[in-house]
């Protein structure tokens, strides 16, 4: 019998940390589905790169904050690949501002995409995973969700929310052979952090014991481990990947 090829869905999988995760999982031999909302070119490029690694890959446009759209996306993936073995809830945005300047819209957008988006995807994927009695759910949080950060009450709340969600879901689904874990990146070189001023960057790097920013690959390596059978006895955990920034 031919060995079944596993399928992984990575939300926001066309750019930054998401892209590194997608390509790492493709390298590990998973068929990958890249979800994106706006950057179709990035998603398409990532599909091509993944295919070069010898797996099947495709991109699906979906605003994960939209409950109904997510339901359609998941059904579509099930139709195409028959199952989803690994889900990486990575898609996220920032809309930083000090509380006095933060609009209701800034708050809502960040919570809707980062936190509710994660809920939406899990809601529809878990049904299929429960039936199969296996699955790996990996949520990308942030060290900011643990220690907070000036100008990020919305982002930090969404990322702290993801930690609570991860732990609760881990308890709910453990009896069905499904593990749920979170990865909390620290300061990682991506478009999201590129916009920070040099002085902010050097202050942050000075606060990191390893004295350097992380790379998307550093996150992808941990996700790869959490997606594999090597992590079967780990659930409900938050793994910081931050050069020692938060201990």
């Amino acid at each position: 019998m031919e060995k079944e090829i596993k399928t992984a869905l990575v939300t926001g999988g066309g750019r930054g940390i998401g892209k590194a995760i997608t390509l790492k999982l493709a390298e590990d031999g998973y068929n990958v589905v890249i979800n994106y909302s706006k950057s179709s070119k990035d998603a398409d490029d990532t599909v091509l790169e993944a295919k070069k690694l010898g797996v099947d890959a495709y991109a699906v446009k979906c605003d994960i904050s939209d409950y109904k759209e997510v339901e359609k996306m998941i059904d579509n993936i099930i139709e195409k690949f028959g199952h989803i073995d690994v889900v990486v809830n990575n898609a996220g945005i920032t809309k930083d501002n000090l509380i006095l300047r933060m609009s209701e819209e800034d708050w809502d957008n960040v919570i809707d995409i980062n936190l509710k988006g994660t809920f939406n995807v899990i809601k529809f994927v878990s049904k299929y995973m429960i039936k199969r009695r296996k699955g790996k759910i990996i949520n990308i949080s942030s060290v900011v969700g643990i220690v907070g950060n000036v100008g990020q009450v919305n982002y930090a709340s969404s990322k702290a929310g993801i930690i609570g969600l991860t732990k609760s879901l881990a308890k709910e689904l453990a009896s069905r052979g499904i593990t749920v874990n979170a990865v909390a990146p620290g300061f990682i070189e991506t478009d999201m952090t590129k916009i920070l001023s040099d002085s902010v960057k050097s202050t942050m790097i000075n606060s990191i014991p390893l004295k350097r920013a992380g790379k998307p690959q550093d996150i992808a390596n941990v996700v790869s481990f959490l997606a594999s059978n090597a992590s079967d006895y780990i659930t409900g955990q938050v793994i910081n990947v931050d050069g020692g920034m938060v201990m």
Partner: protein
Amino acid sequence: MEFEKIRDIIVEQLGVDPEEVTMESSFIDDLGADSLDIVELIMALEEEFDVEIPDEDAEKIKTVGDVVEYLKNLEK
């Protein structure tokens, strides 16, 4: 609403022997179901019989007989 059809769904969902499923069997005490099993079972029944079972009704379902009775009442 035939008992056999419902029994088959219960057998499939809970992985029990058909002989174990009687009208009196309690899902939790006799058939070893947990709360998630019951939610899954309710969802399977909803799909099979094309009905919607609200949470407040689902909470009252404890035995196989409760399911048969509930679905019978829906048919009326």
